[in-house]
């Protein structure tokens, strides 16, 4: 308390500058957590490599903002069950637990090695664990990749919804195209870049649900 001086707004004692600063910092923390609908700050145990982060953010449209209280999410894949050719791989994503937001656009970003032979036929399946570890898979899309480098593959938002746990598994199955037929066996050399700063990632665009949207669907 500063002796003698009075708060111009409430007439109470004013705070000393250091005390006011401490109050402001606490206010800032509360305001940001409330604004992000978080109860506490996130504990980051496995931050994405800065190079992968920079590469991914450079891919997104600069300045693009999801409309009306929307969100844009970049989720990096962890690669499991990668075959030696690393072209028929299982990508696992840990998406944010769904809030009252509606997914309206999804793209899978892959980096094709320059050494890949000609055009690749790539099928993307959503893999869902079912009974006794036998999984079932749903085809989400099929793409012909004819250029090396980054590829943005659009996925149907409806195919990605609904996983309460937030864990999403995508199975890639790609083969070189010979003429207009796919080669019989999987390719021998690495075609997709799965490591380092060229890791695959999902780009998702969400928008806040209009109030009552769920009711309209039920009706």
């Amino acid at each position, binding site marked *: 308390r500063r002796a003698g001086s009075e708060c111009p*707004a409430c007439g109470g004692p004013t705070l000393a500058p250091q005390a006011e600063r401490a109050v402001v910092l606490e206010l800032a923390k509360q305001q940001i957590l409330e604004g992000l609908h978080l109860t506490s700050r996130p504990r*980051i145990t496995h931050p994405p490599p800065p190079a992968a982060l920079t590469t991914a953010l450079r891919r997104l449209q600069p300045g693009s903002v999801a409309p009306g209280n929307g969100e844009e999410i970049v*989720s990096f894949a962890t690669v499991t069950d990668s075959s030696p050719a690393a072209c028929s791989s299982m990508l696992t994503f*840990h998406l944010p637990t769904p809030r009252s937001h509606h997914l309206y656009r999804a793209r899978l970003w892959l980096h094709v090695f320059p050494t890949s032979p000609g055009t690749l036929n790539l099928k993307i399946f959503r893999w869902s664990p079912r009974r006794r570890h036998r999984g079932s898979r749903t085809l989400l899309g099929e793409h012909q990749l004819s250029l090396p480098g980054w590829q943005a593959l659009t996925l149907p938002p409806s195919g990605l919804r609904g996983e309460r746990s937030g864990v999403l598994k995508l199975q890639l199955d790609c083969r070189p195209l010979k003429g207009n037929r796919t080669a019989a066996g999987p390719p021998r050399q690495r075609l997709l870049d799965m490591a380092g700063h060229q890791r695959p990632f999902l780009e998702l665009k969400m928008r806040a649900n209009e109030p009552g949207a769920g009711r309209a669907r039920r009706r």
Partner: protein
Amino acid sequence: TPTCEPETPLCCRRDHYVDFQELGWRDWILQPEGYHLNYCSGQCPLHLAGSPGIAASFHSAVFSLLKANNPWPAGTSCCVPTARRSLSLLYLDHKSNVVKTDVPDMVVEACGCS
């Protein structure tokens, strides 16, 4: 709205820049590096009641004078935000996803008397 000088008694906007490094949050808030946490503070004598700070028009100035000469003050008036803008944040969530979102009404741009 005037920015508060140390001894400004009337309704004004008090500016505070908060650096996320100072909060120890630079590990999960990627952009921006900080933001202006401003708030409104100061007295609202009755002749300023209803004056929206910088947006005051001639009409509201005359209206204020009429009120100031009114011997029967009615109620009190408070120094409140009259203009706010959103803050765009890029941050890591607890699953290390990168999230970009706009938080509405985060930064007070103008204050005025209710």
